[in-house]
């Protein structure tokens, strides 16, 4: 197995109830790179990314077929530990969702649920995470304020920090800038480019330009199927599939 491949999806079908949302997806996500998933609304990109940390388990009637593995280990094996998986694969959601707690407690949450009690360790880790998420300077003097008093862009960076605090290996971004203004969006894109040195990043976006700016590889999905996958530069300049070309030139979606 290629040591550079962090996550591998083989012939993934996904159903909820009778609806088939994903058909025969084959993808490889390389370590320490940013992979973007693009495609029109409803093409299944959010559904797919939620398979990677098993958040789709929350949907009644959800069923996965095929093999989804990380470092060679089957994520859906009966012995798989979902809780552990979610620590290793973090997620940043479309709409920022900090807890109605203080900024400090938001970051500390992930540590505390894992039984970490050492106050000094937690403080240290909180500061580190806030720095890594490029928000430390803005909040260092008000760590005890309610997180909901932050602006949308700040809240999203807080959520990123919260995710970083538990040392994931992979970070999933599900349209992270969809509800943010252009300036906040830019800050987060810069952050993603920095983070990729230490983490494997997968980002879902409906904004093609964003995908072009930020990612190393891109996958184009349409109606639940994978149409094309390749290095971003190639896909955007010389797409191999006609449908990819039509989507990129705005003929639909």
């Amino acid at each position: 197995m290629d040591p550079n491949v962090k996550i591998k999806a083989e012939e993934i079908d996904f159903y909820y109830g009778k609806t088939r949302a994903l058909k025969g997806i084959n993808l490889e996500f390389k370590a320490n790179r940013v992979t973007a998933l693009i495609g029109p609304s409803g093409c299944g990109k959010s559904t797919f990314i939620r398979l990677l940390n098993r958040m789709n388990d929350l949907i009644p009637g959800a069923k996965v077929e095929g093999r989804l593995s990380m470092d060679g280990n089957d994520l859906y094996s009966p012995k798989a530990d979902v809780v552990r998986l979610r620590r290793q694969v973090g997620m940043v959601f479309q709409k920022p969702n900090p807890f109605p707690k203080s900024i400090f407690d938001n970051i500390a949450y992930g540590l505390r649920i894992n039984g970490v009690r050492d106050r000094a360790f937690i403080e240290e880790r909180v500061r580190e995470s806030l720095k890594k998420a490029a928000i430390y300077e803005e909040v260092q003097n008000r760590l005890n304020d309610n997180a909901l008093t932050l602006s949308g862009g700040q809240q999203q960076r807080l959520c990123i920090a919260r995710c970083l605090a538990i040392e994931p290996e992979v970070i999933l971004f599900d349209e992270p800038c969809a509800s943010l203004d252009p300036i906040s969006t830019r800050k987060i894109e810069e952050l993603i480019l920095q983070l990729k040195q230490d983490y494997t990043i997968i980002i879902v976006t409906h904004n093609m330009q964003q995908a072009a700016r930020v990612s190393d590889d891109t996958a184009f999905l349409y109606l639940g199927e994978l149409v094309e996958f390749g290095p971003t530069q190639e896909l955007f300049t010389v797409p191999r599939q006609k449908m990819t070309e039509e989507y990129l030139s705005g003929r639909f979606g």
Partner: protein
Amino acid sequence: MDIANTGKVNALGADKKRYTDLQQALGFGLLFASILFCLFFLGSIIFFIAERGLAVISWEFLTEVPRRAMTKGGVAPAIVGTIYLTVGAIAFALPLGLACAIYLCEYGPRSIVVNIIRLSINNLAGVPSIVFGLFGFAFFVKVCGFGVSILSGALTLGIMALPGIISASQEAILAVPQSYKEASLALGATQWQTIKKVVIPSAMPGILTGVILGIGRVAGETAPILFTAATFYTRGYPDSIFSEVMALPYHIYALMTEGTHPEVQTQIAYGCSLILLCLVLGISAFAIILRQRSNYGS
């Protein structure tokens, strides 16, 4: 090899997992126990009252007046009395409550006035039932001179039922789509015409549900009628709205605290409790079914 055994070093206490799993199992177990506790209690109440009450219930019990110092005959006057009081209470509370709800939803300026009214409704809803009884006694029985009567009792119960009817009506009226009202007004109807012909008919199922639930609540109340309407024994049925009346809830209380034949009276009390329970729960069930029907309809 599956993900649980990757062998990767995880700086965050990997074996805390068993502890948190145990926590969850215990926690959920406690929650389950709470629900079981509720089920157990409900089950016992229904079981005992049904079992011992049924032993006493007969056609005679339901239709005849009591004889021989409450030990023979039936409790029909109490049933009838409860019905009179309840109907009277709702006859008073419904028009008043509906009018109030209409004002709050349709006419009221969104301002301090509306807030004050809302606050008073909420506070009225929280007043203890015995305080209503005191008020009813001092005001309706004495000041108004109605005496201990169906009228006093019904008015007292009506005030108690008022907040509930206002809330239910408000909800029902607010649920009427804005588009209906706009369509009516666009055709040149006045506000009152719109309310009368469009809003109220649309909101009727919700209002009715609130009324029926109010009936259920009021039928079982004892404290407000203790000194305003109820008495242990009447000779036959009430003559007018100014007469005293027997009522099921009060009858149960009186059977257990007055009178001279405790064993027989306890049996009769079981019977009354069963009737009251069936009445109240039956009414509530009817209201719930009505609400579900109207939800499916819309």
